[in-house]
């Protein structure tokens, strides 16, 4: 799924894709990827990890007037890598797991240069994308198996 606010800038588009996939990685996957890095990164927090709410908006009829449906929990964190470049990374994830938000921010920061982006893509992003696609395909097949054709009978009798 592409972001509604479609970006023509390829760098922004790539970051949107990365953050979308990182936000769907579970904690264990993120921790394992962190441990698998050849050199453990060091970072400082520009914004402390924090849990709060996002108001989820919807539209009447799906396409009409906007309204507030209800809130969802969301956690966020902003980090900067120590050392050369000091790349900044942001993490926003659904739920209350601040550690996940922080790790997403770290991987976002590590992806700010071409070599880092390539490494994180191979290590984490691509496998997460594959896993989500597999799950989606499996689920879609199960739903597709419930496709129904009702036959309308002629109304009979009196």
């Amino acid at each position, binding site marked *: 799924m592409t972001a509604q606010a479609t970006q023509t800038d390829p760098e922004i588009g790539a970051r949107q894709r990365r953050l979308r996939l990182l936000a769907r990685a579970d904690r264990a996957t993120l921790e394992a990827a962190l441990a698998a890095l050849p050199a453990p990164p060091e970072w400082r927090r520009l914004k402390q990890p924090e849990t709060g709410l996002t108001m989820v*908006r919807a539209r009447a009829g*799906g396409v*009409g007037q906007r*309204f507030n449906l209800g809130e969802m929990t969301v956690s966020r964190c902003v980090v900067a890598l120590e050392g050369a470049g000091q790349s900044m990374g942001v993490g*926003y994830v659904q739920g*209350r797991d601040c550690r996940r938000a922080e790790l997403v921010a770290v991987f976002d920061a590590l992806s700010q240069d071409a070599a880092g982006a390539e490494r994180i893509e191979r290590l984490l992003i691509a496998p997460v994308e594959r896993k989500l696609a597999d799950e989606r395909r499996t689920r879609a097949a199960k739903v597709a198996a419930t496709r129904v054709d009702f036959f309308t009978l002629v109304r009979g009798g009196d």
Partner: protein
Amino acid sequence: MYVAVKGGEAAIGNAHQLLAEDRRGNPDVPELSVAQIREQLSGSVDRVMTEGSVYDPDLAALALKQSRGDQVEAIFLLRAYRTTLPRLAVSLPIDTGNMKVSRRISSCFKDMPGGQLLGPTFDYAHRLIDFALEAEGAAPQAEGKGALADHLPQVVDLLNAEGLIEREQPDADDAVVGDLTREPLSFPAGRDIRLQTLARADEGYLLALGYSTQRGYARSHPFVGEIRTGEVAVEIEIPELGFAVDIGDITVTECQMVNQFVGSKSEPPKFTRGYGLAFGYAERKAMAMSLVDRALRAEELGEDITAPAQDAEFVLYHADNVEASGFVQHLKLPHHVDFQAELTLVRTMRAEIAAAEARKAELAEAAQ
């Protein structure tokens, strides 16, 4: 009137301990985990999220454990918890047209592009108690067959070439979207506020009101244009980045109700619409909501307001089960002073009546 009381700390502490013991039940029976509630009682979890107005399945499951399965109590817990959290963002409107559907049906259009997908439904089940579930067995596996299109168009808009069904119009991008969590309900309430109130509203209340419209109170002759359940992405603008990012999926159920409309002084005959949307698998809620949304559009459509479901003040002021339960249940708090005053009043009134009757009898006796 309730008058504040002091004391009772020890008794209250013991009462809560007793509640904790009762909540646990027989300790020989294994304790429920929050994950078990989340995974296996998802119908309850979804209702608590919808009416608690916070999407967080773990939190809703925990609230259900704490409330020993009492849903309204769990909803109250979630509402109280949300007040402790800051608002970090407001999402872009979710795009239900891009839903990854688990279910999608229409009772208006038999042959719709993408087909009718029953999904995980109770419909067409015999509603016989399944005693096999008493035994623990291997996890069931559903058969997969075929694939789904990435985008399933919303059928009400797709099959409306003639324009006989009203089209929903988006509001201006800079229009203010009302928010009940910031401003108390006031009237006249716009559709934004009405829909937010209905989304949080008690399911049983909406079900009864929706049912009343079917039985002739504000008859609206409804058809299910489409019901769909599935995952939608939530996107928020990230201030640190200056663009929107998709931060996760939520499951929602949407009902597009299509209602016959014979026309009014201002409108030609056409089909009008009511909308229902709720967190999770919440088909009954979404359907009832769409009926009540349509009924509440009476004034806008120039219909006579004759039935309870059309009365916005009545419907919206009584829809919230946390408020309703609070006001009804406050009656059990100590009203001793108030009641003593009422007792004195009733005694005085009785004494006055008795005195008047005695006087009347005396006068009658004297006259004889």
